[in-house]
């Protein structure tokens, strides 16, 4: 009996992934042919709450409103356009095969499953690859100004983990252009009355009545007022939890609160230890730094990564002769070279820096060098491709990358883990859905570049509008609890007490202080390389620091107006609880896969060593009343269309 079977027998929650019948390529069509529909005239009788207005949230809200559902959309930003999808730089994958280089839906599907180190659900990934082509069509129809060739057709570039060019891009601002496209479509529905928009409103609880998600409780960030909102279905499109590390490429306000509050109300949290550390970020320059900035992976199309062979090298980069440079990605992974996947590239950079070969004043980076590209393509072509990224680098690092190689180092960037969802993107709480980075479903243990934008839009445009209808159809004309139900009142009171409690501690340290310290622990012990010893240590340090947070936190101001310190306190509280679960999940997964690298489980060559007999499963955690005592549930992963293989990019 394998460990997966043993754990599965002990599940406390019935996990039905609802994967449709048929061969993997037919499942989505089979689903659509058999799903229940809601008559166009009846759609307006249903209210759907969408939380978050990034790619997944904005596209879902806009599409649901177009179909005729009443949509209430919530964002904690001042405008729906600010969501962090906007910061994605490089591009979006689509299996269009416009380059005629052998791409296909199946190849994108296979690359994604393999890139995720065979820890994603096959059926979901195949659907993602199928709808990727529709996304490109939809976004072009909306006026997204993708890069084009001189003949007027769309241009493509390559991204890590793929040997075809399938990435569509808009300069270095693809996320911005796609989000603005979705935001405009969303805004059209706000103007037409299909969407009611609640801005500067933060979700602080989910209300579950008789086992079904019935609405949410939100805090108006401007007035501090706490209100309830009821609906037939609730969609959480609230992003990932990369800010648990404090220093990350996420925006300052990104947080786990919505997903975590759902988790505490019974939703399972899957694979929290699958976090992506992106290889190309600007290294930390000083201790007061608040965030790290990503340099798009697309730079690795033309930039070459290297470190000096000699750890004591003091000469500037251009004076180091070729034979004294180690182009380690090209050396170790000749067939993918500088475009090796993110987890692999990050670990290789860490090893170079750990060996003392790091560059820069703090010796905490590796070079990303464009001199060969500038020689080959000319300054103008390089500027055309990467100009805005080069400018951004210069503004932050104070060095000109046309002359001096960039310095880069890995940083927390994306989280593959998230709320457990079935094939319909519904959590184990009926009526509660999770989309985009907030769910766990498509990227396994490692996400490939240019796939986050693809997944967000796939979920919002082409999956949820169908699956939500299937869930709502049986509810037609059935009475639903309204906000006068005592559960709403109870949730409001609990939330109010929670925020008042932060104000009442009156200790000595700010929420930022605790966030920074928390982040250090998670980075040190649950970052790029994890060990049993380190994780056990983190599980001692975290509860102790959390105790200090509860007794020595200081939040100034009041709960009755705009108070960013108070907002932060609530988010840091939830990060603490999540942090403990991340470490626990990492400790229990005694194998290495994708972004989860356990030093004890590696090949002789230092690559991740999976254990497919015992760990080919999703670890979905149930809240156990205390962050240190979660209950493990597993969903075994079955592969029909691909064969489990050792991932090789050599």
């Amino acid at each position, binding site marked *: 009996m394998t460990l997966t079977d043993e754990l599965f027998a002990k599940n406390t929650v019935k996990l039905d992934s609802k994967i449709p019948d048929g061969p993997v390529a037919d499942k989505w069509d089979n689903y659509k042919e058999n799903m229940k529909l809601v008559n166009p005239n009846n759609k307006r009788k249903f209210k759907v709450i969408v939380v978050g207005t990034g790619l997944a949230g904005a596209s879902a809200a806009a*599409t649901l409103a177009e179909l005729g559902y009443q949509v209430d959309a919530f964002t904690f930003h001042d*405008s*729906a*356009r*600010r969501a*962090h999808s*906007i*910061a994605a730089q490089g591009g979006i994958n689509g299996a269009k095969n*416009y380059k005629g280089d052998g791409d296909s839906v199946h190849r994108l599907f296979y690359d994604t499953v393999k890139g995720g180190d065979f820890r994603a659900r096959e059926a979901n990934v195949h659907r993602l690859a199928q709808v990727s082509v*529709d996304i490109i*069509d*939809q*976004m*072009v*129809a909306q*006026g997204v*100004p*993708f890069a084009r060739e001189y003949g*007027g*057709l*769309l241009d493509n570039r390559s991204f890590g983990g793929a040997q075809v060019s399938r990435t569509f891009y*808009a*300069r270095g*601002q693809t*996320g*911005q252009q796609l989000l603005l496209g979705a935001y*405009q*479509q969303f*805004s*059209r529905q*706000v*103007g037409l009355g299909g969407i009611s928009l609640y801005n500067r409103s933060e979700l602080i609880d989910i209300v579950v009545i008789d086992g079904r998600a019935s609405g949410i409780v939100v805090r108006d960030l*401007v007035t501090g007022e706490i209100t309830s909102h009821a609906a037939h279905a609730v969609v959480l499109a609230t992003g990932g939890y990369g800010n648990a590390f404090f220093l990350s490429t996420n*925006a*300052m*306000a990104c947080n786990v609160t919505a997903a975590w509050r759902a988790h505490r109300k019974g939703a399972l949290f899957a694979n929290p230890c699958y976090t992506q550390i992106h290889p190309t970020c600007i290294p930390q*320059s*000083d201790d*007061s*730094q*608040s965030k790290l*900035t*990503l340099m798009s992976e697309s730079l690795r199309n033309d930039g070459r990564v290297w470190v000096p062979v000699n750890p004591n090298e003091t000469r500037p980069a251009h004076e180091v002769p070729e034979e004294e440079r180690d182009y380690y990605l090209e050396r170790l992974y000749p067939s993918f070279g500088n475009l090796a996947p993110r987890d692999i590239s990050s670990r290789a950079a860490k090893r170079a820096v750990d060996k003392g070969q790091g560059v820069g*004043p703090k010796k905490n980076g590796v070079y990303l060098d464009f001199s060969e590209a500038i020689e080959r393509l000319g300054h103008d072509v390089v500027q055309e491709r990467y100009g805005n990224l080069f*400018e*951004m680098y210069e*503004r932050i690092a*104070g060095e000109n990358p046309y002359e001096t190689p960039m310095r880069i180092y890995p940083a927390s960037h994306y989280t593959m883990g998230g709320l457990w969802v079935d094939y319909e993107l519904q959590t184990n709480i009926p009526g509660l859905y999770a989309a985009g980075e907030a769910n766990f479903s498509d990227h396994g243990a490692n996400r490939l570049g240019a796939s986050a934008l693809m997944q967000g839009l796939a979920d919002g445009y*082409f999956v949820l*509008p169908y699956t939500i209808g299937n869930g709502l159809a049986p509810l037609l004309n059935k009475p639903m609890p309204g906000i006068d139900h005592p559960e709403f009142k109870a949730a409001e009171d609990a939330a109010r007490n929670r925020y008042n409690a932060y104000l009442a501690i009156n200790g*000595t340290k700010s929420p*930022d202080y605790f966030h920074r310290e928390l982040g250090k622990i998670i980075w040190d012990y649950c970052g790029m390389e994890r060990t049993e010893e380190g994780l056990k240590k983190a599980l001692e340090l975290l509860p102790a620091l959390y105790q200090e947070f509860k007794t020595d936190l*200081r*939040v*100034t101001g009041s709960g009755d*107006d*705009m*108070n*960013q*310190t108070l907002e932060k306190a609530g988010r840091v509280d939830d990060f603490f609880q999540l942090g403990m679960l991340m470490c626990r999940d990492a400790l229990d997964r005694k194998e290495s896969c994708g972004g989860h690298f356990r030093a004890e489980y590696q090949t002789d060559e230092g690559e991740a060593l999976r254990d497919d007999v015992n760990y080919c499963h999703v670890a979905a955690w149930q809240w156990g009343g205390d962050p240190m005592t979660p209950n493990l549930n597993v969903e075994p992963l079955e592969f029909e269309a691909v064969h489990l293989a050792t991932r090789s990019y050599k």
Partner: protein
Amino acid sequence: MSNHLKNITLRIWRQAGPAAKGNFETHVVDEITDEASFLEMLDILNDKLVTEGKEAVVFDHDCREGICGTCSLMIDGQAHGPQRGTATCQLHMRQFKSNDTITIEPWRASAFPIIKDLMVDRSAFDRIIESGGYITADTGGAPDANLIPIPKVIADAAMDSAECIGCGACVAACPNGAANLFTGAKIAHLSRLPQGQAERYSRVESMVETMDDHFGSCTSHGECEAACPKEISIDVIALMNKDFRKAKFANRKDLARK
């Protein structure tokens, strides 16, 4: 290598709420590295204020990569500070010297009421987009993306104006508090593309009218272009005006046909 800046005096606008009377408050930041960003300097100040039991200064910020458009701030009277083509979050302290006095204010425009301290309400921008800043293309049924070739120069020009981050610096810099650069940028983006032609004239008419409901009028000062962190060209305003004039005729003709 990083240097340390000493003794920076900050004159910061504090205002308890929309209706409250505001005033400048002075704080000194003793020591900070020039590698720090401007907003990190405010983080350090806020951390100190909270530890001392005082209320933190409220300001809008999020991505800190110059793309989300959440950050604002008039720094020494300039929207987003002294560095051209740079949003406040990308401004670094190496632009300043020890012993400098820096004045920090919120965007000042009647269309952007102050919420608290340095934070303003820019939702009037959303109202403009809601009134027509889109191409109507409901989800599903879009033709193949390569069906309509778009010349590279056209796509590039559309992208130039699509880069607007909606921060509001153009309005804050304008002596009239006009939003013509913001509105013009969206109109130029959409009306340059073949997909945007069907709604070209109805779009410009309704967006300009919504803009006029909220914002002041443009008198071609050009301050907006100078303040724009994305360096969007004032040409978009000329294009918008031209289309608006045409729309008045085109739309009338369409109506006459009905």
